[in-house]
Structures are given as C-alpha cells and as structure tokens.
C-alpha cells in the first residue's frame, strides 16, 4: 500500500525531519509509527497525504510514485486517504452530520446516497444518535469519532492517523484504537502515528520506530523476514 524508499525531507530553514526512511506497509496491514516528538512521524504522514513533498527519495502509494502527482491532482490523491488528526479538524459551525458528509459532497456523491452513507459511518463509530449536534456539544472522544467517521465515510483504502488518542484518557484511547482495528479487519490499510507505547504494545500490530528522522526499528520488515 505504502512504500518509502530512502526518503529525505528537509524543511526550509534547514531542519531535516527525515533522513533516509524506508519501509513498506502491505495492503490491508495495520501498523504503528512511533518515536519521540520531533522524530519525524507527522512529516512522514504529511508526505503520504502530499501536504509536503520529499526532498529526496520515493514515496509510492498503491503502486504509484506520488512525486509524479501534479498539484492540481492532489485533491483526488487525498480522496484515497482517510486522515485523522489529534485536534480532529472538524468544522465547528456545522453539525456532526454535515461534517461527516463533507468528503461525500466534495467527491460528488448524489444527494440520495449521502444520508445513507453518513449514517452508516456514524453507526460504525457509535454516534448515530448525535448527528444533529454541533461538534462543540460533544466530548473529546466523541469529536475524535466524528473525525474518524469523516475519514472512513468515503471508504478510502488507507487510513492515516496522527496522534489520534493524544488528548484522550486511556480507556477512550483503547476504544479509538479498537475502532481502527475494526476498519483494518475489513481490509483497510491503517497507519497510526502515536507515542502511547503501552497502548501500542497491547494492539499487537507491527511498529515502526523513528528517531531523529531515521528508522531505528521496523517490525514490518522483521515480520516479512520471519515469514
């Protein structure tokens, strides 16, 4: 699903966020990306979503070298990826329903279809009863679930999450992670950046550990090696 080949990213101003990262996430796999803050986790996710471009190296998504994706095609690229953020990035002047419907409206799904799909997504994250509420009326865990519903409503083959449990207590965090695992079980590839090591350990999925822009441990490669 995702391949990184010797990817470097140097930001304007000289900060080198990634220094030759390579890994491969097979389709349908779920993996964690961990490391201290500043290790390059967010940068790595941003490269996949084309929020940033690599300075050097190749990022391949679904067999396609994404450095070849032109700027004006970035929106279509992003529609293949469901993204979840620590700060949820919801639109606070719109209802839960409208927030989740946004990717469908953007993709041009018909008016008849939208309510069905939005409710299916809200049902999966357990928020069907809250569709008419505004995000501000929800708890942090519920807001994150809205973010997840929005990310999956278009059924993208890949989910990227950047510290999705960053602000949540352990119990809610585990719920959120289990939700990701459920999506993974129906075939969605999932890559989650998190520094909650205890939680990650319990999830039993491969972990990629970054340190100062380098991969210091890649359980995905080890798993492949074991087989």
């Amino acid at each position: 699903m995702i391949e990184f080949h010797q990817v470097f990213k140097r930001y304007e101003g000289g900060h080198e966020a990634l220094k030759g990262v390579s890994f491969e996430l097979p389709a349908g796999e779920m993996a964690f990306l961990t490391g201290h803050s500043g290790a390059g986790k967010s940068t790595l996710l941003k490269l996949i979503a084309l929020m940033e471009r690599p300075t050097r190296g190749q990022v391949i998504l679904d067999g396609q070298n994404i450095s070849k994706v032109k700027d004006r095609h970035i929106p279509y690229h992003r529609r293949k990826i469901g993204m979840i953020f620590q700060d949820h990035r919801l639109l606070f002047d719109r209802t839960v329903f409208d927030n989740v419907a946004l990717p469908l409206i953007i993709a041009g799904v018909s008016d008849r279809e939208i309510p069905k799909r939005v409710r299916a997504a809200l049902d999966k994250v357990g928020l069907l009863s809250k569709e008419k509420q505004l995000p501000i009326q929800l708890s942090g865990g519920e807001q994150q679930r809205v973010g997840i519903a929005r990310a999956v409503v278009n059924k993208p083959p890949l989910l990227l999450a950047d510290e999705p449990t960053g602000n949540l207590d352990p119990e809610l965090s585990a719920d959120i992670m289990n939700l990701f695992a459920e999506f993974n079980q129906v075939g969605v590839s999932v890559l989650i950046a998190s520094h909650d090591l205890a939680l990650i350990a319990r999830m039993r999925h491969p972990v990629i550990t970054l340190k100062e822009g380098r991969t210091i441990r890649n359980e995905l490669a080890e798993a492949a090696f074991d087989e």
Partner: protein
Amino acid sequence: MSKSNRQNTSYKISFLDRFKMAISLHKKNAANTLLDVLRHPTNSLLTILVLAIALALPTAFYVFSSNAKAISSNWSGGVQMALFLKENVSQEQRAEFIQELSFRPEFKEVVLIPKEQAIEDFKQQSGFGDALDYLDENPLPDSIILTPYENHSGAAMLEKLAQELEQNPVVDLAQLDMAWIQRYQAILEISQKVGTFVSILLAFGVLLIVGNTIRLAILNRRDEIQVIKLVGATDAFIRRPFLYTGFWYGLIAALLAALMVNIVLLLLQQPSSTLAELYNSGFSLMGLAPSQTLTLLAIGAGLGLFGAWFSVSKHLKDIQPT
C-alpha cells in the same frame, strides 16, 4: 471477518451522478451564498451600498448625458438659416432666387419675409410700437428663412452652405445662429469623456471593493478551507461559493443602483417637464430603458464575479493545510 474476505473499498460514482451533483452543487452554492448575504445584512449592507453608489454614479451620468444629447438633437433639427437680401434687389430677382432655393435638395422650407412684414413683426414683438412710425423709411431688409432637412443640419454642412449662399449677388448676409449649439455640443463631448473616465475608475473601484470583501471572507474561513482541502476538495470546489458571493454582491448592488437612479429620475420628472414647457419644448426626461437596466445588472454582476475571481485566485493558493 478474515482479511481474505476484503470488500472492495471505494464507492463508485457514475458519470451521470457526477453531472447531476455538479448541477445541484451549483444550485446549492448559489442559494447558500445568496442566503448568507441576505442573512447577514450588517456585514454585507455597507459593502453593497458602496458598490451601489459606485454603480449608480456612472449610470446616472449616462442617463443625464443621453438626455442632454436628446435635447441638443431636438435643437439642431430646429436650426434655421437667415439670408438678408441686398437693398437694390428687384422683385423679379427676389422671386427667381426663392425659386432657385426651393429647388435645392437641402431645404425643407423656404419662407420669404418681406421687409414690410419684418417691420410689422418687429413693432409687435419689440414693444417699440409707435416709435418706429417716426422712422422715415423701413431700415430692415427683405429676408429669407431657410429650414434645412435633418440630414443637412450638421454644423459643418450648414456653415459651408451659408458661405456658398453668401456668394450669390442678391445676398447681403447669411446668418447661421448655431455657435451656441456648437459650444453646447463641445461641452457635452468633454463631459462625456470625463464621464467615461470616471466610470472606468468607478468600475475599478467596484472590482477592488468586491476583491477586498472576498479576501476578508477567505481569510475568515482559513481554517475551514484547510480542512476542506485535507478531505480532497479541488480549488474549483472551494472557489465556487466565493465567486457566487461576488456575483450576488455585484447583482444586488446593481439592482440597488438602478433603483437609486430611477428614484432620482422620478423626482426630476415634474420639474423637468415644467422646464420643458417653459421653453415650448416637447422634451421629456428619458429614464432607464429595460435593456439598459439589464445591461447595468449584467455589468454589476460581471464586475462582482471578476473581483471575486481575482481575489480568490490570488489568496486561495496561500492557504494550504499544515
């Protein structure tokens, strides 16, 4: 569920559905932005008023200058030329000359005013009356009043004609009283050029005002735009509501401008017809014709749309998700 049991993930969207949705999106954008403008009158009212005034000024100017042109075209239709004959011209020569003039293609009407009639008229109109009886002889010459056809009433043409007729041995003087019409037309021409220039400036003003309003709207919704870009919105999708907003601003302002101009015209209707009566003129104030109102609306909406377009293409690029 096992991993071998993967379902095909992405939803498929047919071309027809895409097309239908594009239409429905346009409708929604148009309706939502209009509602937005109308629902927040305090935000938009001031902008729309400024735009309306900027559109009303050139429109009013246009209406008044076309009215002024109409007045002067009435006048040049009424231009006459007076030929004063020499004293020693005989009756036969005079008759022959009048015959000759009435055969010419330029004149609609050739009227002889013999000097006897001229003195009578003068007595009556001047109020000198009996005082003139003390004159030994009639000091006025015979004269011929010529009324040219419309297509021969151009200033330069008449000037040339007057010069030609003055060469005729029976004619003492050809008088053409149109210097003031020429002055009037020259002033009109200058004021029209100034008006055009000011209109262009005001049109630029409209572009800038709309552009700036849209710029503020874009900056206001910066976070929203970032989120929408993250979930895969194209620039066209993000641009559209702003373009509609600019369009509505321009259109509503133009409607308001048309209203303003019509109110002013309505207020001027009575005084102007009184004035026209005083001058024995059939002139009546022309308002905005429906086609001109439509042109105004189209210009307003077009300027709004363009202003928004410039602003959006300039500022949307700067907003990228982080």
